[in-house]
């Protein structure tokens, strides 16, 4: 494949370039810093241009490394796309780090660029944690908080204790040879190696899509266990400094007490900063351009303040992000919200890349490597075993209290997903060489553990997850009827869950919600925002915005926005979306699917084609091809268009994209359809659906209120010349179906029928304004389908209307 050889060439070129660059830089980096005075004393003539390397050295190196990291990420992703996606990105970055480290070492014979703990903890880690917490699915997080805390606190303590003690036991038994080490140091080592690392967890789990509860358990644990890790580390560090004999009961109690202070203090500090941040964003109406900066500044402040007070910094920034999300997102201008989201992703991505890269580079350093087979292997072994035991033990205890028990398969994945990462390395590198002579051994072991978990466990995680779920039917074999029914079951289940109200956690959530509504929102949110918090209206507003954007982008693709005026369905060029290879081979499908839309997730046709037709070639008998094509058509249609159930709106945490609710148009359609059916049932069955009606009016009113400056006149044009205020219901000879989607007409008529008291007071009500209700997108494509599907319905409405109206008005 020429594509990949091209990539390989590109990669090689990059590598050589970087090698030269680094050689040059590192040679100069060793130059002693000359005095600031530029001009040398023995100057012979006027220098026109001088090479001022030392002048820019530090920032230049920083920027170059950031650049190198970005290039590395680029090549890794390209590699993943085209060659293999077996190794997770983080693993590949480490390998690239090895290569780069080798180059630097080759140039310098010493590792000049290492991952320093201060750099890591102050400049690289905070943004990752802030990103994770800002995008944390709060509802899921808090509903599983109990389990998360149990794993984080007791699980980490268990891991630390058992690993430390077992290693000590093995040392005493002589398995490690001669080391200058004691029990306390083993415990210290145990505590730093037992922390599950959030960076690694995100990096690996992002590519493996497990169910949301499992993900939040592992991820939440990795975030919250920092409180424990910091405490254990500091406590044992202090104990090592104090020495064995001076440790008595008071010291131990102080240790336990310090845990409480550190953990809760850190969280409390985070909440304080979240409140400050929300208040700030509440007042920034006039300087919206710098609003976005506040989020980062306050988040970082939370982190540093906690560090300063020796509290848990990660907990602080976590709770800051978690608590401020909601208020900040509603207070800030939409553009600021977008800015914050994108900027955070950029920063977090960049930091993560650099961390893994440097983890690789740091390895290529002869100074730090001390190999002790027993120590290293035993660490790996114990870490693994005790993780499994710990997870199963705590889950068994938890399942007695949980409403939704955690399954065995999930437990297996959880224990396998206890990944260690850069935090462990950072802590190891911070050890004091004086107090802990075996520091290098610990660093080496930590590095090996990190590589093992990130690379090897990362590679095998996906196959493991897939293998464990072997009972699920293979996707390609599903017949149409199964697909339809599967989706129907999902909807049924979602509905019944809603009816049941998710019994059990209701009391707390309802109580909290009420408290929050009354007090917190009043303080922290802008007054205007509070009024508009109506749930359905917000969705509607968002959907209309998205519509507008899609409309414009489609218009641009079509050449101009004039396409909307044509009566034909918008023909979308299919070839652009899929590989042109298939366009050649399957011309029939292309023709049929021309009604397809922008805005749909890119379900690749290859997934369906490959499964149903193994090898397509032009020699296939025409008949077979036609049948196959129909089949593919139907499957593809279902795949694209079945409404997604709530289960499918997964809270996927991902570093690289935000698709939280990509199918919002579905929500909109469902919403409109249910509104329509409610109106129908109101008319025909006379069931007391009054509240529903009020809701309808309320939304549409708010909407027109908002949109009234926008479109009504323009819309009129498109839909033909309807008279201004006349009630269309009383114009039975209207040719309306051909000019506007029938359901628009329908809703208008209904609105005109019996506005409630409240409705009448609000707005002068004209049918024109209502027209903006349905999004333009739906009206532009496949208008034919509407006509056919709904024209019978509309005709019935027309007939029913006059009688209904006479009674009610």
């Amino acid at each position, binding site marked *: 494949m020429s594509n990949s050889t091209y990539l390989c060439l590109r990669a090689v070129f990059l590598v050589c370039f970087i090698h030269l660059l680094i050689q040059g830089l590192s040679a100069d980096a060793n130059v002693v810093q000359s005095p600031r005075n530029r001009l040398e004393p023995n100057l012979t003539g006027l220098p026109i241009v001088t090479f001022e390397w030392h002048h820019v050295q530090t920032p230049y190196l920083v920027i170059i490394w950031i650049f190198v990291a970005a290039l590395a990420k680029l090549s890794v992703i390209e590699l993943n796309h085209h060659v293999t996606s077996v190794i997770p990105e983080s693993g590949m970055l480490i390998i690239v780090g090895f290569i780069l480290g080798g180059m630097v070492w080759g140039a310098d014979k010493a590792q000049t660029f290492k991952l320093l703990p201060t750099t890591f903890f102050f400049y690289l880690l905070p943004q990752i944690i802030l990103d994770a917490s800002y995008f944390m699915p709060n509802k899921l997080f808090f509903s599983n908080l109990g389990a998360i805390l149990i794993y984080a606190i007791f699980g980490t303590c268990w891991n630390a204790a058992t690993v430390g003690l077992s290693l000590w036991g093995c040392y005493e038994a002589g398995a490690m040879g001669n080391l200058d080490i004691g029990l306390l140091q083993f415990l210290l080592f145990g505590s730093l190696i037992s922390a599950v690392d959030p960076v690694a967890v995100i990096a690996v789990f992002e590519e493996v899509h497990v169910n949301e509860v499992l993900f939040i358990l592992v991820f939440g644990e990795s975030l919250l266990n920092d409180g424990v890790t910091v405490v254990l580390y500091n406590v044992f560090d202090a104990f090592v400094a104090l020495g064995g004999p001076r440790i008595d009961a008071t010291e131990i109690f102080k240790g336990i007490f310090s845990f409480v202070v550190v953990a809760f203090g850190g969280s409390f500090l985070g909440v304080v900063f979240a409140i400050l941040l929300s208040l700030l964003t509440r007042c920034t109406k006039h300087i919206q351009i710098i609003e976005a900066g506040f989020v980062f500044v306050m988040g970082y402040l939370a982190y540093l303040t906690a560090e300063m007070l020796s509290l848990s910094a990660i907990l602080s920034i976590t709770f800051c992000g978690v608590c401020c999300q909601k208020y900040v997102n509603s207070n800030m201008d939409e553009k600021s919200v977008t800015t914050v989201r994108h900027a955070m992703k950029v920063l977090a991505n960049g930091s993560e890349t650099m961390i893994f890269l440097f983890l690789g580079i740091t390895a290529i350093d002869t100074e730090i490597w001390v190999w002790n087979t027993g120590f290293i292997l035993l660490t790996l072994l114990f870490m693994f075993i005790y993780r499994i035991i710990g997870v199963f033990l705590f889950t068994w205890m938890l399942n007695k209290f949980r*409403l*939704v*028990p955690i399954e065995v398969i999930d437990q297996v994945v959880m224990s396998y997903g206890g990944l260690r990462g850069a935090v462990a390395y950072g802590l190891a590198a911070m050890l004091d060489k004086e107090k802990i002579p075996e520091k290098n051994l610990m660093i080496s072991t930590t590095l090996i553990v990190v590589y093992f978990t990130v690379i090897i466990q990362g590679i095998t995680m996906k196959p493991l997850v897939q293998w464990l779920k072997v*009972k699920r*039917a293979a996707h390609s*074999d599903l*017949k*149409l*009827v*199964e697909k*339809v*029914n*599967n989706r*129907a*079951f999902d*909807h*049924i*289940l979602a*509905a*019944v869950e*809603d*009816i*049941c*109200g998710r*019994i*059990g956690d*209701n009391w707390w959530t309802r109580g909290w919600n009420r408290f929050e509504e009354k007090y917190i929102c009043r303080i922290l949110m802008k007054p205007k925002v509070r009024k508009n918090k109506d749930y*359905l209206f917000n969705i509607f507003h968002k959907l209309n915005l998205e519509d507008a954007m899609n409309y414009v982008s489609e218009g641009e693709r079509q050449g101009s926005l004039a396409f909307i005026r044509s009566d034909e369905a918008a023909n979308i060029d299919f070839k652009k979306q899929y590989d042109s290879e298939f366009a050649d081979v399957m011309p029939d499908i292309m023709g049929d699917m021309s*009604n397809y*839309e922008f805005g749909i997730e890119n379900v690749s046709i290859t997934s369906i084609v490959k499964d149903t037709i193994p090898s397509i070639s032009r020699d296939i008998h025409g008949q077979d091809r036609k049948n196959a094509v*129909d*089949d593919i*058509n*139907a499957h593809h*249609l*279902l795949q*694209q*268009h*079945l*409404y997604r*159930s*709530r289960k499918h709106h997964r809270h996927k945490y991902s570093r690289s994209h935000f698709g939280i609710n990509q199918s919002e148009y579905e929500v909109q*359609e*469902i*919403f409109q359809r*249910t509104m329509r059916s409610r109106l129908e*049932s109101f008319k025909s069955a006379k*069931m*007391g*659906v*009054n*509240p*529903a009606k009020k809701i309808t009016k309320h939304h549409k009113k708010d909407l027109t209120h908002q949109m009234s400056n926008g479109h009504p006149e323009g819309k009129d044009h498109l839909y033909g010349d309807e008279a201004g205020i006349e009630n269309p219901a009383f114009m039975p000879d209207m040719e309306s179906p051909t000019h506007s989607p029938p359901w628009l007409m329908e809703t208008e008529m209904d609105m005109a029928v019996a506005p409630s008291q409240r409705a009448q007071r609000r707005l002068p009500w004209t049918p024109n304004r209502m027209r903006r209700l349905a999004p333009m997108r*739906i009206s532009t*494509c*496949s208008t034919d*389908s*509407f006509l*056919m*599907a709904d024209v019978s319905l509309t005709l019935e409405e027309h007939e029913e209307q006059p009688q209904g109206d006479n009674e009610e008005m």
Partner: protein
Amino acid sequence: MGSTSSTLLKIPNVEELVQETGFSPAHIIRLYDRFKVLDKEGRGHLCPKDFGAIKELAMNPIRDRIISAFFSPGKETVDFYTFVKIMAHFRPVDKDRPKDPNSPEPINSRSNKLKFAFQLYDQDKDGKISRDELLKVLRDMLGMQVTEEQLESIADRTIQEADLDRDDAISFEEFRKSLEKVNIDHKMSIRFLR
């Protein structure tokens, strides 16, 4: 939380419910609390309006069918007993239940779950899903962009796959057979109702 026994006493026919549905008394109490929350006017039974007030339900495309499944044909209210019995369909299957051929099948058995789903499709209750009924269901569940012809071709194809006796309708047996590979126990169970 109060004393559970007093709440238990308030609920009529508790032992019968426990016996028939297999719910534990704790679950019945929770369902009762939920029932009372839904029944805003405190009349002791629910009507479709109460279901309609559930906000999240508005986003569900087959909402109306499910709501009407709660109401027996002709009745416009559902009392707590029926509510619980219908919820019992969604209880996870008891895997280690002794297979007693004489006792009636529990409400949450696989085939009863399937029957519940079948009734959602079969609105006219003739024991078969006709092509029109299938079309209606598909129309509910598919987006607006799907044209009529496409819809009909999907419906035809679906019937073709499932219909074994070629009567252009899907009977319950054919329905069950077509779904034998699907893990109904998992798909139609709410875990917290165990």
